[in-house]
């Protein structure tokens, strides 16, 4: 494992020791090449899995006041890949994501709060031009070998699900499941 698991609460505790200087929102930049937006949905008894590149991510994390954190992410749906070619083509086509018209998927957080050893991120997701509420569950890891106060490089895992019918992405509803589960692993680094 590259990273030791830490948690927001542990980070918060360690930050208390680090002093007030860090107790403010900190901007992070995404390492897009090392980040993955994974998704999966049901296909009969099987699953279709795939990935989408991240176009842009604006992250501002405040470990002392988690509620002040904000997350905004834009995905390049038009470059989505799936576990078999027809699935990617179907997904990008007019009956599902219609990426010719709507090449991007966007998420903007509206509230962030601690939840267990992670955080709950409520926000609005825009898919196929339709904006709907969405909840993501976040867990944060610190880089392996780093000291507890070193939050310069982090890994965030975000999980959640959407029903594609909520966005009019209803193609092949008789074959492919409605729920699309997301599993995002984002590697981020502090912006100096």
């Amino acid at each position, binding site marked *: 494992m590259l990273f030791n698991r830490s948690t927001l609460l542990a980070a918060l505790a360690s930050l208390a020791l680090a002093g007030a200087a860090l107790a403010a929102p900190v901007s992070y930049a995404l390492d897009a090449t090392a980040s993955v937006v994974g998704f999966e949905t049901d296909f*009969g*008894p099987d699953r279709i899995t795939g990935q989408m590149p991240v176009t842009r991510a604006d992250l501002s994390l405040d470990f002392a006041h988690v509620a002040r954190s904000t997350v905004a992410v834009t995905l390049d749906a038009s470059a989505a890949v799936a576990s078999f070619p*027809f699935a990617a*083509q179907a997904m990008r086509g007019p009956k599902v994501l219609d990426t010719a018209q709507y090449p991007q998927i966007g998420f903007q957080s509206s509230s962030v709060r601690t939840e267990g050893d992670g955080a709950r991120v409520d926000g609005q997701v825009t898919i196929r031009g339709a904006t709907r509420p969405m909840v993501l569950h976040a867990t944060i890891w610190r880089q392996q070998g780093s000291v507890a106060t070193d939050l310069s490089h982090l890994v965030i895992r975000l999980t959640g699900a959407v029903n594609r019918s909520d966005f009019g992405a209803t193609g092949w509803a008789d074959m492919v499941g409605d729920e699309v589960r997301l599993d995002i692993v984002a590697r981020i680094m502090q912006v100096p």
Partner: protein
Amino acid sequence: MAGWANTPDSFGRTSRLLHWAMALGVLGMLGLGTWVHWMQPNLSNLWLYGLHKTIGLSLLALVLMRLAWHRISPPPAPLGAPQGWEVLAARLAHRTIYVLLLAIPLSGWVASSATGLDVMVFDTWVVPRITPVSELWEKRGFAVHGVLTKLLAALLVVHVAAALRRARAGDGTLRRMIRGRA
């Protein structure tokens, strides 16, 4: 011994091969098409769509070859009284079967093109899209495909029954399509 070409009173090998290859293909496709229509798609049976399209477009190629061949080497005239009702009914049935053998794969191609997914044959080549990507075209195309297929199945029952009836009467029609001569 009949050769490859048709003669005024016999079917050559080419016509017979085309007939029986297509008979096998069409019967197989009626089964495969029905199966594909009703099955729950998953990763292990997804290839059956590709197989259906591959066989369907191959059958379209074969019927075009058959029509071209009949221009080059006309088939023998039907056995029996030229103006008898059986000959007229057979001519109508044969022509309808030919129309369906063209229209069924074409409607499948139209509907598949309209889905926006690549139509692949032999798991290798993508055939050109012949309609716009449209749910209306897709829905109508598949509806037409289904109706025409049922009509073909019904006509094939009549075709086989008529061939067996003639064979029982001993007029040589079926024998001529098997061995070339009546």
